[in-house]
């Protein structure tokens, strides 16, 4: 847990959240820019082929993560927690490093199909540089949102529980549909 329990937040807590947000966006930018550069290889494909690749890929990803192939076919992901050593240089620096690793989306567990569909979108969507950057910023913002919410004077345990329930049931599939719909608009 990056923030200590309690409802009264200090300046240090705000700096931790800012560092985590900056790290998450930086990590997402680095991952998305790498994919965006690779996406040039798919650029010659006609839009219909790219749309089919994204849609078919999204279906396969959903089947593997949430459907009948769940547990039988595993998608590539780093099945480990981010090591505590990232906090070696202090809480604020550690929050940045932790956020960076979370933002890349490849350094820890990925319990939802949506990031894979975003990956397919960046690879095959032939996004403009601006759109790719905004997708990365959106990913970083989304990744940091739960921590930003904890700066509010609310019961963090209830928020965490709500998110955890959402992660397990409806939210990942709904989020995947949103990403797929957006991808098909952009392609």
């Amino acid at each position, binding site marked *: 847990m990056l923030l200590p329990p309690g409802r009264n937040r200090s300046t240090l807590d705000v700096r931790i959240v800012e560092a985590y947000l900056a790290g998450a966006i930086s990590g997402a930018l680095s991952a998305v820019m790498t994919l965006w550069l690779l996406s040039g290889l798919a650029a010659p494909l006609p839009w219909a082929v790219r749309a089919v690749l994204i849609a078919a890929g999204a279906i396969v990803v959903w089947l593997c993560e949430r459907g009948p192939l769940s547990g039988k076919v595993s998608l590539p992901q780093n099945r480990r927690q981010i090591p505590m050593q990232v906090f070696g240089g202090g809480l604020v620096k550690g929050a940045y490093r932790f956020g960076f690793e979370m933002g890349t989306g490849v350094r820890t567990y990925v319990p939802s199909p949506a990031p894979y569909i*975003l990956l397919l979108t960046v690879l095959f969507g032939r996004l403009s540089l*601006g759109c790719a950057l905004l997708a990365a910023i*959106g990913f970083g913002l989304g990744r940091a949102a739960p921590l930003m919410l904890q700066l509010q004077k609310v019961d963090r345990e209830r928020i965490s529980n709500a998110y955890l329930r959402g992660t397990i049931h*409806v939210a990942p599939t*709904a989020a995947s549909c949103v990403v797929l719909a957006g991808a098909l608009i952009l392609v």
Partner: protein
Amino acid sequence: MTQRLYWSWLIPALTVAGAFWLHSDALVALGIGMAAGLSLAGSI
């Protein structure tokens, strides 16, 4: 509290829908990024 469950996909969904209505590829990109990021929100 149950309403919070839907934040993780409803806000991005509304962003994407609004962006589609506004013909803004930039907002669509932001929305799908948010949706993907928020879908992992339970893991922190």
